[in-house]
């Protein structure tokens, strides 16, 4: 049962999928589960809808984890977020306010094929598992495949590269499915959050150019509040700012796509660490990493309910 589910270990895709249905079964008033499509290898792309059922036009926050297969702390965080949100709904007034006024769409594993492959064959697989019949290499970087400045600086057009942008924008069924879902709901989805690892950063648009977004002050303030909240947990420092200057220029990213599609708050987290374990963050660090990130995500979500 979910009460005994261990959130402080990494779980396989199958375990995560059965956990999602169990959360829906045991918390029907707060959790709904649905699929937005199928992956390249035919796996369902499950999403949880978290929030008190009230009027259908509630604002929403989208959180995806596991865009890059080897970044296992992402799916661990998405599960942690759902567990914490449900457990604290009764006694934490801030969380109750969030779940009463917002829906959270949580996608614990975006890149389901890649994640499964990273558990079974290659621990350090990054991309999707699509096949390009002209090349022996598989996979597209799902964070270079979005229809925004697609395949320009910071992405590669070679199928064997880890930053391969794909044969065309939204070529990956996983990207196409999520883009379609968000496009349909863009009036309601007020924030887009994508969880990655590792670098300890909080990034916002633009990735594809050195320029300042029109609502810079509000987004910068939300980011500042988020990393301040994160720091308050264990004193871990996160850098924050536009992805192009804080990390590097890249094109076809999901946060630039979300922003261009009217989602005013689009963030990418790079979680722990800064290069001691890298992708192999030990399970003993799942709890503190997720606890601090929870504070940051709550701060971002709360900023949506306040006027900026």
């Amino acid at each position, binding site marked *: 049962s979910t009460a*005994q*589910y*261990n959130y402080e*270990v*990494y*779980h396989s895709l199958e*375990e995560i999928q059965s956990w999602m249905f169990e959360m829906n079964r045991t918390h029907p008033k707060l959790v709904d589960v649905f699929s937005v499509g199928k992956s390249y290898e035919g796996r369902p792309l499950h999403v949880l809808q978290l929030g008190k059922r009230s009027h259908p036009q509630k604002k929403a926050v989208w959180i995806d984890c596991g865009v890059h297969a080897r970044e296992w702390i992402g799916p661990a965080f998405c599960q942690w977020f759902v567990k914490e949100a449900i457990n604290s709904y009764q006694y934490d007034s801030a969380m109750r306010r969030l779940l009463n006024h917002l829906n959270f769409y949580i996608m614990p594993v975006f890149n389901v094929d890649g994640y499964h492959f990273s558990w079974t*064959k*290659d*621990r*350090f697989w*990054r991309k999707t598992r699509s096949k390009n019949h002209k090349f022996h290499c598989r996979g597209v*970087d799902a964070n270079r495949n979005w229809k925004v400045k697609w395949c320009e600086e*910071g992405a*590669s057009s070679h199928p064997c*590269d*880890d*930053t391969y942008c794909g044969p065309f924008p939204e070529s990956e069924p996983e990207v196409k499915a999520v883009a379609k879902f968000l496009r349909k709901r863009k009036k309601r989805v007020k924030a887009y959050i994508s969880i990655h690892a*590792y*670098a300890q950063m909080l990034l916002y648009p633009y990735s594809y150019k050195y320029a300042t977004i029109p609502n810079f002050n509000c987004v910068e303030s939300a980011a500042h509040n988020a990393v301040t909240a994160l720091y308050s947990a264990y004193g871990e420092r996160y850098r924050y700012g536009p992805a192009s200057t804080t*990390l*590097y220029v*890249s094109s076809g990213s999901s946060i630039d796509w979300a922003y261009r599609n009217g989602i005013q708050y689009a963030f990418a987290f790079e979680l722990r660490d800064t*290069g*001691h*374990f*890298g*992708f*192999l*963050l*030990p*399970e003993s660090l799942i709890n503190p990493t997720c606890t601090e990130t929870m504070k940051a995500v709550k701060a971002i979500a709360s900023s949506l309910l306040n006027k900026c």
Partner: protein
Amino acid sequence: YLYNNRYAGDQVFRITPNNYEEVQVLKQILGHMKVDFWQPNSASLICHNATVDVHVKHNDTHTLCARLNQERIAYRVFISNLQKEIEKQTGYRSSRKRR
């Protein structure tokens, strides 16, 4: 062993190019080796004063060490045996332990 022990002896190097010349040399060295970029995501994104983390196969580690020493580019090995770290990260646990 997890993953059929395929990562035994593989290492992860953290390399810090200090100037433009070292960046160019490093791009040239890594461009000719089959390494897996952890950070940044590709050789083209290497820039000075930004760390480069690369996963190097066990039979290439000595070659890379020699080249970096020869070029006097600063580096350290932050994971000396990848297979061990992988085993440590999840190891073999019964599904019961996961619940």
